[in-house]
């Protein structure tokens, strides 16, 4: 034989693939196994990816959030009116014309029922002053109008409207004894704010008996480099007793427990499932080798090398795994990408509405995953194929 190994590999692998239809049963089981593993893997992790995307889309790199020292979330913070005034006057905060980009806000939750389950959920209600709109670049009212100060009017985030009952523009909703009119719907670059309801801070102070107090300040700094100076200026005054954090840092802190939890469940789950799929793949490939015993022996007798024979088995396994991986990714994409759910973010004790996000990075991970399954599943059977004793195998009549 004067073929080189490369052409031997090519010939045998091609022959192998052409024969797959003859072993359709076991091959489809292997494909199906890999598809399921990759599908579940991507579906679970797309939840984490979507959650993270919603949380991080909200942040801007030169916005700081100021809360009472030690507060773990906006909900547990509290600032007096005087504090908010004094902090806003510290140099370093950006001005837009005459308006100081510093927004004192209230953050509470209200019970509204979820559309999907009709059970009550903690929906964020944020009380804001005009500066709030200037601090957030991506904020935009897309339906209706903004609320009028001094009135019981609400504007609702796009995601909140999708997920919770009674939030259509024009409808009224009752919190306790006060009725609120939903007058507008807003977008905020797909960020966390879209899970919230907004109203006039003064009205909310009265409704929640908060006197003239606020909870947080969101402020835009003149440049991200100002952060340390600003922090130092705030820390220098013992009256304040507050923490200054970058909004992006705050949000990633808030999303960490949930993301960690999903990944902590998702990865081990995928590993275990992969183990199952590997067993399936090994069985399939052993079957493939044993049904081809005579064929392999014949090839060897004709002068084909052991390595090309082994490689062809490995190759077959990889092809099956890739096909499975592709099917799994596609199914996960079409079933889950953009699927909207909401969960209670425990850190802020309020609902976050987010979409499952099947990102290219996840698909890549899924494909790598499939390749690993295919490789391990094909390796041992490939070794067996290479080691088949030619003479006995030719005699095999199975």
């Amino acid at each position, binding site marked *: 034989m004067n073929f080189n190994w490369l052409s031997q590999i090519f010939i045998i692998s091609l022959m192998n693939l052409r024969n797959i239809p003859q072993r359709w*049963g*076991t091959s489809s*089981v292997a494909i*199906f*196994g890999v598809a*399921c*593993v990759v*599908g*579940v893997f991507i579906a*679970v992790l797309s939840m984490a990816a979507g959650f993270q995307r919603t949380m991080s889309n909200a942040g801007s790199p030169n916005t700081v959030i100021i809360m*009472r*020292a*030690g*507060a*773990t979330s906006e*909900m*547990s*913070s*509290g600032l007096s009116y005087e504090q908010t005034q004094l902090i806003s006057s510290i140099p370093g905060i950006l001005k837009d014309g005459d308006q100081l980009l510093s927004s004192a806000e209230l953050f*509470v*939750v*209200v*019970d509204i029922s*979820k559309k*999907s*389950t009709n*059970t*009550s*959920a*903690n929906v964020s209600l944020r009380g804001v002053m005009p500066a709030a709109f200037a601090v957030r670049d991506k904020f935009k009212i897309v339906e209706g109008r903004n609320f009028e100060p001094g009135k019981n009017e609400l504007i609702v985030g796009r995601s909140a409207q999708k997920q919770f009952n009674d939030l259509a523009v024009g409808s009224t909703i009752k*919190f*306790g*004894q006060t009725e609120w009119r939903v007058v507008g719907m807003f977008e905020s670059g797909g960020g966390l704010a879209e899970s919230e309801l907004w109203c006039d801070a003064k009205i909310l102070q009265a409704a*929640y008996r908060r006197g003239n107090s606020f909870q947080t300040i969101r402020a835009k700094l003149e440049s991200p480099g100002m952060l340390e100076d600003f922090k130092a200026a705030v820390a220098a005054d013992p009256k304040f*007793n507050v923490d200054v954090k970058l909004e992006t840092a705050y949000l990633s*802190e808030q999303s960490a427990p949930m993301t960690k939890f999903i990944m902590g*469940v998702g990865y081990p*789950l995928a590993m*275990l*499932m992969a*183990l*199952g*799929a590997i*067993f*399936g793949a*090994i*069985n399939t490939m*052993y*079957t493939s080798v044993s049904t081809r015993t005579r064929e392999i022996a014949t090839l060897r007798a004709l002068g084909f090398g052991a390595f090309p024979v082994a490689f062809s088995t490995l190759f077959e396994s990889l092809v099956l795994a890739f096909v499975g991986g592709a099917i799994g990714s596609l199914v996960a994409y079409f079933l889950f990408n953009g699927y909207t*759910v*909401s*969960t*209670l973010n425990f850190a802020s*004790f309020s*609902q976050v509405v987010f979409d499952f996000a099947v990102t290219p990075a996840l698909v890549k991970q899924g494909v790598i995953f499939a390749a690993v399954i295919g490789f391990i599943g094909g390796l041992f059977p490939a070794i067996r194929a290479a080691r088949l004793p030619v003479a006995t195998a030719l005699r095999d009549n199975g």
Partner: protein
Amino acid sequence: MKYLYFIFKNLTRKKVRTSLTILSIMVAFLLFGLLRSLSAAFDGGAEIAGEDRLVTIHKVSIIQPLPQSYLAKVQALPGVEKATMANWFGGYYQEQKNQFAQFPVLADDYFDIYKDLIKLPPAQLENWKKNRVGAVIGRALVDKYHWKIGDRIPLIGMFPQKNGSTTWEFVIEGVFDAKTEGADTSGMLFHYDYFDKSRQFGEGTVGWLIIKVKDPKQSAQVAAVVDALFENSFAETKTNSEKDFAKSFAKQFGDIGLITTLILGAVFFTMLLVAGNTMAQSFRERIPEFAILKTLGFSDITVMLMVLCESIVVCVFGGVLGLLLAKIIITGAAVDFAATLPGLGMSWKIMTSGLLLVILLGLITGAAPAIQGLRLNIIGALRRN
């Protein structure tokens, strides 16, 4: 017995294949055990919540406080055996990641109302009552932070004290244990009086009321009476059974049950196919042998039962291994998760339903080959060789 030996011999003929099949079934049931336990832990609060306890919160949202005066009014209602109150404290120890639940409560009343779930040695209760800044902690907290009685624990809370500080000091005076499996012992309880008199704002309010009704059958009526009592006041209430309260709270996280069922469905379907296919194939290869058995005088039914037995043995072996492994992992993880997911544990209910599924899986995977074995035509099968 001789059949069992025969089955065993058959199984050990292709050891690699049999072990791979067993392993994949093991993985499926390991996942079953883990996911079911996880999902049960999310609904755990609802599982053990008392039927005779009601929870009253502010109608607008749970974060809104209720006037403390509501407690006496509720206590005076007919049908109410006892009522008490609690508040959220939202503190953490040293670092933000060390968050756990703390509630300011009325010592005697709280342990009386929850006497079916948690217990505190009487001597510790007495000591605790004598110490204004005393606190009692659950067993899970002891396991996590290794605190002991007498330790001074500073916590950073969301409530500032009158002097503006958010650091509160507590002295551990006792440790309470769970009475029922799954009861939450990941929290800390301290005196409401200390909390209320020291905080900067909100004095004289409570977070929620816990009501024990005289007759569990009248829970709904009592709840309605409580809510009617405060209707049209500035703080209207929403009263539910503790079970519903826990259930609806669990639902806030999303439909964990549905998600786990979907994943399990995918896993099971895959494993069923993988294991079933392998077993079916092994039977196909042995058809001539079955024909010989029949020729030797084994009845149709015996051959069928043998095939069925073989698949059940494989499934039971793998399934039980997986369930036991899950039990071990969950028991190990329960300590680490005690604070975040109290009540994580693999109950006997999960174990039993797992075992039933194992047998079902064995029956399903063995069914097709078993029927084949039953209908096997000796002449035809022998000729196939």
